[in-house]
């Protein structure tokens, strides 16, 4: 049974920071390998740390007639949303707050990213940034509904919106076994919400960095830190939702959580690098004509199983 404890409050940000550095380091190592270099572990871990130091001391640029309040609010909202979403994330047995509406809370915090990226894109009064911001809104319209159906499927099977309850319901077979569609859709939408991999059009090179194009210094650090945080939190949430959470043989609960989370994040990073950017006017067709019907069907099957039990 999962519960919440006060010690998790300082531990959670530290764990998340380590996970983010690890994920960015993996991405850096894969980049280096793709470029034909081999990167040592310390070299790869040094990449995000050096980048943080560089952005910390970097000069902040501004643009003419920028909407400063909106811009900064957007930039700050992204990491805050990631952190708030992580409150319901179980670290082994305990989470900071195992809310009765945990899944809804998690989803609501994720959706803050829509506002964050749009505001960050609108704020600098730059055409390409604004294109990036609006691209993310279009992306949200494509990925969010399948994402919600995937979340609801896990909650339906467990009969609760409490994340601890969903983990407890997987003492038998993990949810991924009998709801594989929901799991795959969840991972796809986790990448889309963190505009990672094939879904990076909002910050794409073709619009000179898009929503992040005018960001520099600490602003850039917050924005991309928030983006990686969101990716890590969304990926980590796949473990309690579909992969049985802390449960597993031999190893202690916290170690299973780490192993599974690491595997999910590695898969997300690898898949994200494997595919080129997909334009949203194409993906939205797939999302609405294929993914939504599939996830509804998945939810229906799961609901029937729950009723028959």
């Amino acid at each position, binding site marked *: 049974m999962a519960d919440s404890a006060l010690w998790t409050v300082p531990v959670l940000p530290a764990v998340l920071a380590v996970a983010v550095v690890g994920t960015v380091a993996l991405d850096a190592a894969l980049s280096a390998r793709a470029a034909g270099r081999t990167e040592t572990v310390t070299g790869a871990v040094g990449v995000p740390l050096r980048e943080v130091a560089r952005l910390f001391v970097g000069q902040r640029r501004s643009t003419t007639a920028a909407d400063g309040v909106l811009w900064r609010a957007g930039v700050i909202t992204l990491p805050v949303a990631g952190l708030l979403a992580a409150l319901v994330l179980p670290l082994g047995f305990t989470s900071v707050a195992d809310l009765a509406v945990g899944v809804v809370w998690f989803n609501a915090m994720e959706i803050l990213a829509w506002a964050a990226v749009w505001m960050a894109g609108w704020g600098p009064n730059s055409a390409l940034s604004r*294109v990036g911001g609006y*691209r993310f809104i279009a992306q949200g319209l494509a990925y969010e509904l399948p994402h919600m159906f995937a979340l609801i499927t896990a909650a339906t099977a467990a009969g609760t919106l409490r994340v601890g309850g969903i983990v407890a319901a997987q003492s038998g077979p993990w949810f991924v076994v009998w709801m594989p569609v929901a799991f795959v859709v969840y991972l796809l939408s986790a990448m889309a919400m963190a505009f990672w991999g094939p879904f990076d059009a909002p910050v*794409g090179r*073709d*619009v000179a960095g898009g929503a992040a194009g005018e960001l520099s210094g600490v602003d850039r650090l917050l924005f991309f830190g928030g983006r990686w945080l969101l990716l890590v939190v969304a990926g980590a949430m796949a473990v309690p939702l579909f992969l049985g959470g802390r449960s597993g043989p031999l190893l202690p609960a916290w170690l299973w959580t780490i192993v599974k989370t690491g595997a999910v994040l590695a898969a997300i990073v690898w898949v994200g690098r494997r595919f*080129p950017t*997909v*334009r949203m*006017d*194409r993906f939205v067709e797939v999302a609405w004509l294929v993914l939504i019907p599939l996830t509804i069907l998945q939810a229906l099957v799961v609901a029937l199983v729950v009723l028959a039990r």
Partner: protein
Amino acid sequence: MMILCGAHVEQLTPLARRLARRLRGSRTLRWLTDDVGVHSGGDVSARWLAWLVDIEQALPGGAGTGPISGGCQPAQDPAALLAVLPELLEGAELGTARLIVASLDLNIAGLGTAAAVAGG
């Protein structure tokens, strides 16, 4: 393709053939450019596929050496393409719009006079 004019065949041929094979084999690329910017019976996919054919025809079949000579002519009449462009771009997202413009391979050197004629 104009950029490749004068490049050395023996260096270029294997690279170009590999590139062409890779692009033709990419379903994702095809999916992203199909039904985009349909003009005179072809979409963006058809146009980049035609470029690949042009490139391969420009490469000599055997192990020839020396500079590339074929395929160095400019594409279609830029003024005619310019006239259909607004219609093609209507309602297109920026990324799509860039694909359409790039796929038409407008000859910018010819555009100056064409625009002057249209404007005057």
